[in-house]
């Protein structure tokens, strides 16, 4: 392989390389603690809301670098309403969940209407939403904390409490066999899909990656899945919240890369006028992006109150920043039109690892913020500068 090819490869997989380096750094500095089963499991549970929100935020950002500042408040508000429904009105599990989703969608649609059809800048609308729903959360909760510890179905299904793991159907072993089997099945499905794709491409004489590269990629990803599930199986098994994250990632990953609707998000962000003149309703695309953000905020609300087994008027603060940060670290363009769900997830994992690693090293919380800020800045600088062909300073 010649030099330019290696450079291209490094460019394409920068974030993965950075992820490995950062993980290596913390593994050494924490004496391997970050790779302990419990911490791997915590990485998922602690950051589940980021994965969910960042996926929704990606759709907003794709439409042209537009962000949603209200998600933290909406997470808090839907969580507050859910907690009240369960505790005050004794609403059954299903009713609570449906009501929370409905509220999330309504809030999303409310903001989306102003953004998409009246064309109020998203920054303004969602800044207003941030204030409105933070205030309403306080009103609904009367400024108090409401515990939902006793509503175990809700708590367990959305990944909180002590039993928030998929139970082991093979009995109680030191290793969670269900988790291992799931890992093996997932790996098998992954390898099968990879092969199927390659074979059908070869059959139709499309361009394919070099065989050596394809093998290396397939083997590495398979090993990562296996190692990851093995770690989880050593610590109580699959966290239920991982299922929600997987659903969101797979569904939205598919929508963005394989459907007409997904294509429209990229088109609007790439060139809105050209999209309009191609017979596509750009208003609808904006509407969809922000309504969907409400839906996913509701899901993040469920995950949040389940994990903390309570609702409080201060929950969800700065969640929007975590989501936005993950998107940009994960390679989404600040101008829209560029970004992928897998990229955003890698961005979120990177943020999560930095959080966890610094906590394990007992770095002061304030310094953690400083480091996260610098990482975000560095990621976007790298993106911008590498697109400019390595020139640091923009020409006057």
């Amino acid at each position, binding site marked *: 392989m010649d030099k330019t090819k290696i450079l291209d490869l490094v460019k394409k997989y920068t974030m993965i390389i950075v992820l490995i380096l950062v993980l290596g750094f913390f593994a050494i500095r924490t004496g391997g603690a970050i790779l302990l089963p419990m911490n791997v499991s915590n990485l998922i549970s602690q950051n589940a809301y980021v994965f969910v929100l960042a996926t929704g935020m990606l759709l907003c950002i794709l439409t042209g670098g537009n962000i949603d500042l209200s998600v933290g408040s909406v997470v808090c508000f839907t969580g507050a309403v859910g907690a009240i429904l369960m505790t005050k009105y004794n609403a059954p599990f299903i009713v609570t969940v449906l009501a929370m989703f409905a509220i999330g969608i309504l809030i999303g649609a409310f903001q989306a209407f102003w953004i998409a059809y009246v064309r109020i800048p998203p920054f303004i609308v969602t800044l207003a939403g941030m204030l409105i729903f933070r205030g309403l959360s306080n009103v609904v909760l009367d400024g108090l904390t409401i515990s939902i510890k006793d509503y175990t179905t809700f708590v367990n299904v959305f990944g909180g409490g002590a039993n928030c793991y998929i139970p082991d159907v093979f009995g109680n072993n030191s290793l969670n066999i269900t988790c291992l089997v799931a890992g093996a099945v997932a790996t098998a499905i992954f390898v099968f899909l990879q092969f199927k794709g390659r074979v059908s491409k070869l059959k139709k004489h*499309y361009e394919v990656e070099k065989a050596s590269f394809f093998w290396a990629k397939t083997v590495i990803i398979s090993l990562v899945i296996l190692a990851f599930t093995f770690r989880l199986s050593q610590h109580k098994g699959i966290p239920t919240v991982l299922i929600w994250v997987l659903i969101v990632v797979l569904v939205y990953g598919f929508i963005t890369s394989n459907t*007409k*609707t997904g*294509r429209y998000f990229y088109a609007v962000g790439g060139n809105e006028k050209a999209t309009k*003149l*191609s*017979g596509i309703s750009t208003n609808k695309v904006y509407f969809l992006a922000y309504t969907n953000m409400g839906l996913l905020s509701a899901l993040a609300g469920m995950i949040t109150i389940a994990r903390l087994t309570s609702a409080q008027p201060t929950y969800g603060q700065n969640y929007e920043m975590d989501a936005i940060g993950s998107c940009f670290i994960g390679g989404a363009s600040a101008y829209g039109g560029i970004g992928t769900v897998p990229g955003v997830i890698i961005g979120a994992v990177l943020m999560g690892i930095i959080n966890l690693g610094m906590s394990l090293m007992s770095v002061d919380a304030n310094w953690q913020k400083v480091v996260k800020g610098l990482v975000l800045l560095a990621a976007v600088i790298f993106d911008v500068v590498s697109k400019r062909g390595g020139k640091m300073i923009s020409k006057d």
Partner: protein
Amino acid sequence: MADNILEMRQITKTFPGVKALDNVCLEVVRGEIHALVGENGAGKSTLMNVLSGIYPYGSYEGDIVYNGEVCQFHTIKDSEHKGIVIIHQELALVPYMTIAENMFLGNERGGKQIINWNETNELAKKYLEMVGLKESPQTLIKDIGVGKQQLVEIAKALAKNAKLLILDEPTSSLNEEDSKALLELLLKFKANGMTSIIISHKLNEVSYVADKITVIRDGCSIESLDKTVDDFSEGRIIKGMVGREISDRFPKRDSQIGDIKMEVKDWTVYHPLYTERKVVDNVNINVRKGEIVGISGLMGAGRTELAMSLFGKSYGDRISGHIFIDGKEVKLDSVKSAIGHGLAYVTEDRKGNGLILSNPIKINTTLANLDGVSNKAGVINKYEEYNVATEYRGKLNIKCPTVEQNVGNLSGGNQQKVLLAKWMYTDPDILILDEPTRGIDVGAKYEIYCIMNDLVAQGKSVIMISSEMPEILGMCDRIYVMNEGKMVAELKGSEASQEIIMSHIIKTA
């Protein structure tokens, strides 16, 4: 020995992987108008960027000798300081600032920080007079037309005390009348001793205004022609540009004209902002199967506005009138319904309104007809998409390694072909082509003409809007002439000439 104001000696400029300029030499005599011609991508703009310091000294090889001394320009400021001022093809004016503010932007009058507005406006007035623009310096740029904006750019250059004026495609967005005025202005400057370098695709203008022509092809300077010695005909210049003679600039076709495909009656459109202004005024046109109909007219005549208002009401306010397709009246209230009724509009502004530059060819090709490559659930078949794009790449001879390449990296001609591919893939019956060959080179133009001939041979109808009269005359079966929102004439292609078209425009102006 001629008095050379500028000599560029053996300039070589390499970009990663490409030699953009290869030992290019250019000699410009004081007080002349020197034209630089060549196909797109030949290296004209690169050469001028080297001269003006946009590519700083050290990033190229060779010497720039200006007024007898070897110069090292590190920034644009350095070259402007010496009186070399470049006016780029894309106008660089701030729409919400006044003419005077724009003219002295970066060159403010007054103290170090404080701006002296009286002096600014006085000077602005003086330079506006020199370019013959009768506007108050306080007028906002957004309120004047492109032609006048171009004059402001020139006044701005004069305000920098320009000795050598470089104009990159100065007339590309101007109509015939404004172009003429601009050329006369250059001749007037020449009489006052100004030296100009003009880069242009419009060879008739070049041969009218230039004293010397330097031809650049594939990064090399091919030849220099002198008006007093050489033949300045378009054919002669084209020969130098393409390295061969194009005997026939327009491919022949046997017109097989059928029934009326689309008819527009009493079409009136008002301006979306100035709602009292009629942009299209009671227009009646029709196009037949297998026919290419041209719409000729000056810039601002309302041609693009007419086309876009027909195409699903994408432009304008209070639109009224009737559209008949195959004799039946249809309502085209959205772009979607227009596409559904077999219309396609290929925009004049391929970068702004046509293509997604940051996306690959294949995604641009299918954007207007994603249904063609997806199932009922809206899932795109990416193999099919790749196939479709590759098929059109072959059909239209789009030059690119694969259809995975981003459109932004293609040349203008190839971008135009991708835009055509996008609309051909919607399988339209009626194509409205708005300035389909703007800013693309001679070879690509010919290919686009061939594609148009193929389309009408398949029985499709083509409406071509163009500001280039030779193209309208060479390609169209029938020609409408539009002026100030009205259709002022309808001519047979075989009977029309530039003079007849112009006289219709002038009569109604």
